[in-house]
């Protein structure tokens, strides 16, 4: 399941939902707000989503992950609104019988979310005006480009 939330993401509560006696592996990825990007000191972030489509695209990614990898379950929640340094922006859990599929699926999910889910990030800096961060292609030279 893919979710968007305006509330703080609480990993301890979430992980309890994915207890499974068949699961020999549980991989959790937490994407957190860091205090710098592209040489600038970041004070906070703001995420804006196109909710209906973000939900659909997120679901497609989780469905594809379950098709590509031998998973027992996969879940992803992404934050919307204003976040401070250290807050969790995205939380992904994958469970599998063995670790390899859980690891690979986790990486596939975060990489694909960054490319296709319509969510935008506005960085607020310690110095200077806020700006929307462009991250169309997370690999390569355009990664940290702002406009």
């Amino acid at each position, binding site marked *: 399941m893919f979710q968007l939330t305006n509330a703080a993401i609480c990993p301890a509560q979430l992980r309890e939902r994915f207890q499974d006696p068949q699961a020999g592996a549980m991989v959790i990825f937490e994407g957190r707000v860091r205090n710098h990007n592209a040489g600038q000191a970041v004070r906070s972030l703001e995420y804006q989503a196109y909710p209906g*489509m973000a939900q659909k695209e997120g679901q497609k990614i989780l469905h594809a992950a379950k098709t590509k990898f031998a998973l027992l379950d996969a879940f992803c929640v992404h934050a919307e609104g204003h976040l401070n340094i250290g807050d969790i922006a995205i939380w992904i859990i994958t469970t599998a019988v063995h670790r390899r599929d859980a690891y690979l699926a986790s990486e596939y999910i975060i990489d694909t979310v960054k490319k296709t889910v319509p969510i935008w990030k506005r960085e607020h800096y310690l110095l200077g005006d806020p700006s929307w961060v462009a*991250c*169309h292609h997370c690999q390569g030279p355009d990664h940290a480009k702002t406009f």
Partner: protein
Amino acid sequence: MKIKVQYYANLREQAGRNEELVELAQTPANAADLYQHLLQKYPFTLAEEQLKVAINEEYSAFTTSLKDGDTVVFIPPVAGG
């Protein structure tokens, strides 16, 4: 034909609105025609090549013909995660 256009991220700031109903006199018209029409109204700094387009919540080609009542969102470079 009337198209519902929603704006996000810097397109929202530059349009000064979240959404609107756009009346297109030109028919047939595709998503690229719609963006050209909007460029006449707003100081958008993103070129069509920097955008993707979603029609009724599905990624689509800019050459897709629009229908009356479609919802169109031009997608600036995304940055989730």
